[in-house]
């Protein structure tokens, strides 16, 4: 990429999922240096002056108008519907078909750079997983559950475009668990609770990133623009049950055998938002990422450690008393 002269016009970056805590942080870091356009499917986001904000669903026709109105140079696709938010069909439409439409629009309007926020869930949690999983490991999540099919398909789709359309400069990021103030993914909701379920006899190692570190990682990778697939994870590890204690949660032991039992308990008690039946395996077996490719390629290191991450959840509970 040629370096821009001071007189060059600002690049326009469209960020999806702008109502979420990660996208908000990415937008805050890009704002000023770039012209940012915020898009969300949940609600119209209140943004700083100079940031146009749209409420639109990616797989609906209105989405194209944004591309027609603004000359978009780059897209950062963070917006995703979580499994506890809609039905499987609605999720598939929004996440997979929405992403396909986004990529097609990027081609049509000659967008020069696309960054896609994926998840470590795509690797699948299994007893046979090696540790330090590389980016080229097979994505086995759909073997574990149909509820992660959309995550895997979204990735496959993005990968096809990555190789077929190099002009899109696609970067796919697979972060480990992202936590921090405002984060509404299932792990963050779980650790915000006073009581957290744990599977008896299982405490898989996990990796955690602070949402501010993830936002910084995305901005660093965006500015460097080195297309490819990257795990984003620190080289620090903690067992799940230890993380639960560190976050000030009381442990609620759940019988782990036979394997169908905890799934049954989770669905009967409607723990869909924080301990969903389809994620049970991730609380049983570790999915440890090798994040060295990303760390070395972009000379990035997380600046907050595990204690910084957990202390937010601890303090949150103290404040509630």
């Amino acid at each position: 990429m040629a370096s821009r002269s001071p007189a060059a016009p600002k690049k326009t970056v469209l960020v999806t999922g702008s109502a979420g805590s990660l996208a908000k942080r990415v937008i805050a870091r890009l704002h000023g240096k770039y012209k940012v356009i915020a898009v969300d499917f949940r609600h119209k986001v209140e943004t700083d002056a100079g940031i146009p904000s749209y409420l639109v669903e990616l797989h609906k026709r209105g989405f194209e108008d944004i591309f027609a109105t603004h000359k978009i140079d780059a897209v950062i696709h963070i917006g995703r519907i979580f499994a506890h938010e809609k039905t499987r069909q609605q999720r598939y439409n929004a996440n997979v078909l929405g992403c396909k439409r986004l990529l097609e629009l990027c081609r049509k309007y000659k967008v020069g750079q696309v960054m896609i926020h994926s998840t470590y869930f795509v690797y699948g949690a299994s007893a046979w997983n090696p540790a330090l999983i590389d980016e080229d490991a097979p994505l086995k999540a759909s073997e574990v559950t149909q509820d992660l099919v959309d995550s895997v398909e979204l990735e496959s789709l993005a990968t096809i475009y990555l190789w077929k359309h190099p002009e899109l400069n696609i970067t796919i990021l697979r972060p480990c668990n992202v936590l921090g103030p405002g984060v509404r993914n299932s792990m963050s909701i779980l650790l915000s609770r006073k009581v957290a379920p744990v599977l008896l006899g299982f405490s898989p190692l996990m990796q955690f990133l602070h949402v501010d570190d993830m936002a910084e990682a995305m901005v660093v990778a965006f500015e460097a623009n080195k297309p490819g697939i990257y795990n984003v994870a620190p080289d620090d590890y903690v067992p799940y049950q230890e993380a639960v204690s560190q976050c000030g949660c009381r442990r609620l032991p759940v019988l782990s055998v036979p394997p169908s039992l905890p799934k049954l308990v989770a669905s009967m008690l409607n723990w869909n938002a924080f301990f969903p039946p389809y994620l049970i395996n991730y609380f049983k077996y570790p999915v440890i990422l090798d994040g060295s490719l990303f760390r070395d390629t972009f000379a990035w290191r997380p600046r907050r450690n595990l204690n910084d991450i957990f202390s937010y959840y601890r303090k949150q509970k103290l404040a509630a008393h």
Partner: protein
Amino acid sequence: MASLGSLDVKQRIAASLVTPEIEALVASIPKPLGSFGYDPWGYNEDTFKLALGAAKWLYDKYFRVTAHGLENIPSTGRVLIIGNHSGQLPMDGALVGVAAATNPHGPRLARAMIERFFPTVPWLGNFLNALGGVIGDPVNCAKMLDMDEAIIVFPEGVRGSGKLYAKRYQLQRFGNGFMHLSMTHRAPIVPVGIVGCEETMPAIANLAPIAKLLGLPYLPIVPSLLPLPARVYLNFGKPMHFSPAASETEVTEQVETVKAELRRLIQVGLEERTSLY
């Protein structure tokens, strides 16, 4: 008060197992760990110390292990420790681990490759990981060798550990995986002939159909429920280096070289043994 009492007992057991000697040994093993004391495979120093304390007692007092050639285990750098497998329970792996961890020529944390069904067993999977055990996946081995770790491999797998007493000290079929790892990652092989573990749990029959039903690799009929106190002899051979082979046939030939050396080391152990128990 009851919980205070049990805490006290736990602390006392820990204090009696983790002697200053064990503390000093583990402290001298160079091992990078995360902020909560774990490595990517779940190894945890505190759990390791406890288990090493208990295993050291078994090593010294119960199995009265005699080890020769410990100077052959390099004190730093990647290495594959290759042994003959026996005794139904993985006692041989534990004893080789203790020998490496208490090596006067430079203590090492030697990682054992565990069976793939262990992670599915509650508590046991996490516990074995905390001791340094990992499932025998080639990706795990490759990553560990790249990090200059020492790995214990029994290439016979369950064919060796589950064999009957009648077949004692006969090497079963070896997988070639360890040789590929040694060649690709330029890791020397230190062979170890293990004598005595066959006599800890002599099996007269294997209830294969019931084992299959229970999802176990084998289910032996053994006269003793617990391992018998057989004397164990460990003979470590000189490091063997292998250059990349042109074909799988050549790899198999190199594996045969290791097997021949193992047979020789087993013979040394059998000859020095004066009594079984």
